[in-house]
């Protein structure tokens, strides 16, 4: 009925520790880069093989060589037309996206906030989201005439519903225990959104913004066919002209440009969400051994 109390050796002094140095930036960058290079390598390789195989004539399917030299020409062209097209389109895209961001977020918050609003127009948001951008052209022209605003209008109508839906679903998935904790802390009304709902919904919101950006950008390229502002060149109309004149190499070159922009946008948004997620311990599949 008595215990053997086994005494163990006791370390004499508490040990001291040094913080480990974080992993080198170079190694990190390389780990993120080589798979991309490999992917590009494979894609270009396959393309080259298909092109060389003579499956289709090269005016229909130009090879990488021809396309890249066309892209290079356009890039180094002294009148810088590609760059100014790109500049115009990016500026419009960003501007439209930010307006859509604003309106979409407000709309999403409002709809998630008021049950009646959700019942009334919740579904309309998806309805609007499925409307092809060309359907808005007549209205855009009526409201804004031939101005950049007409393009912005088309972008906003294309992207805001997606952003609204993103924030609504983010808010719907906020864990109830956090909402309840916030409520008990006295976060009501605007404070509830500011301090609880929006921060909690942030990761899904930000990853939803990628969808919003995609909608903006696609609406924009469609919208640029609608209005060309005099003296201003833009990617959307360049693309349509290249298509109309059957210049397959230029079409592909412009597609590459669009892809690259999309990828840059992805890197920005993804690193943002990753940072947000990691800070709150949402390490996804990294939390388990694979």
């Amino acid at each position, binding site marked *: 009925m008595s215990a053997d109390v086994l005494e163990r050796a006791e370390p004499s002094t508490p040990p001291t520790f040094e913080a480990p140095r974080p992993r080198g930036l170079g190694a990190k960058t390389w780990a993120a880069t080589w798979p991309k290079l490999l992917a590009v390598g494979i894609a270009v390789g396959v393309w080259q093989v298909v092109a060389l195989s003579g499956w289709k004539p090269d005016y229909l399917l130009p090879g990488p060589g021809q396309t890249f030299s066309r892209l290079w020409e356009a890039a180094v062209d002294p009148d810088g037309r590609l760059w100014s097209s790109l500049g115009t389109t990016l500026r419009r895209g960003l501007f439209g996206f930010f307006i859509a961001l604003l309106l979409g977020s407000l709309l999403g918050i409002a709809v998630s906030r008021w049950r009646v609003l959700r019942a009334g127009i919740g579904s309309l948001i998806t309805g609007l989201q499925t409307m092809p951008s060309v359907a808005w052209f007549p209205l855009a022209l009526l409201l804004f005439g*031939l101005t950049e605003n007409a393009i912005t209008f088309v972008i906003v109508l294309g992207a805001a519903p997606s952003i609204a839906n993103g924030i609504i679903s983010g808010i719907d998935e906020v864990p109830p225990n956090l909402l309840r904790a916030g409520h008990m802390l006295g976060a009501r009304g605007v404070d509830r959104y500011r301090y609880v709902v929006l921060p909690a919904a942030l990761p899904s919101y930000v990853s939803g913004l990628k969808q919003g950006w995609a909608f903006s950008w696609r609406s924009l390229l469609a919208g640029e066919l609608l209005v060309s502002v005099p003296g201003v060149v833009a990617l959307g*109309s360049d693309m349509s002209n290249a298509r109309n*004149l059957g210049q397959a190499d230029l079409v592909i070159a412009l597609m590459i440009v669009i892809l690259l922009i999309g990828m840059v946008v992805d890197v920005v948004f993804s690193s943002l969400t990753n940072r947000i997620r990691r800070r709150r311990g949402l390490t996804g599949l990294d939390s388990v051994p694979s």
Partner: protein
Amino acid sequence: GGDSDASSSGSEDGGEVRLGYFPNLTHGTPLVGLSEGFYEDALAEDGATLVAQDFNSGTDTIEALLGGGLDATYIGPSPTVTAFAQSGGEGVRVIAGATSGGAALVVQSEIETIEDLRGEIVATPSVGNTQDIAARAYFQEEGFETDTDGGGDISILGQDNSVTVQAFQQGDIAGAWVPEPYVAILTDAGGKVLLDEAELWPEGQFVTTQLIVRTEFLEEEPDLVADLLNAHVESTSFINDNPDEAKTIIGEQLLELTQSELPAETLTSAFDSLTFTNDPLASTLVESAADAESVEVIEPIEADLADLYDLDPLNEILAEAGEEEVTGP
């Protein structure tokens, strides 16, 4: 329609005149006129400035014009008729012709006769477009049945010209009834002209592009309209007097606007099939509209197409210049 918004009616003193056109060979007149500064110069005499606006689709252009976002534009006959009919004969007026000719039925090399097209696909730029109507009317006359859904003896598909070019190159379609420069592009791609639309018209002339204005603009700003017409006539003369230089200018303008360059031979061949004229060839438009009704692409037009034309200002200018006057339908 009433547009009381001053900022968009564009003709205050020192105001703007907004002129639309397409970056397209059949719009050689505005391309040359803009490049040479004819429009700016003419408008400057009345203290107005020019805002030139390039478009990709007749539909957008018409929506812009009727909505008050545009004062005048170069455009093809079928959108003109659409706008006129849609607005109950109110919205637009033709004030001059620009281009004639330059449309053809191009087919794959193995097609020899119209009969060979039976059961095949022929593409047009879009349902109800000028070439589409010409195609339907022609095939109907030749005894082929067609419908707007692409059914019938010959499938007429209204589809984007870019799709047509590729589909033709791939052999997915047997032919296409298209305007320049697509006639030239398709011929380059191994096609041949089975029928030049010019053959269907008296004297081989039919309207391809014309200058139209908002009716309101015509009524409120006769001086500015006269300025536009002056520049237009000057540009037409320039092209006809210096065809080689004009062709070069047009080529440069197209490259500037579209970043895509037509091969020189294609440009030349297309350019040569066009006639640049101030005559709107009104009777050909009226006939085309009648064809559109008869092939049931559009509903019967209630307004009188004679009201579409207001050629007096043009004729005044032509008279002054000692040129032959033009007539309405």
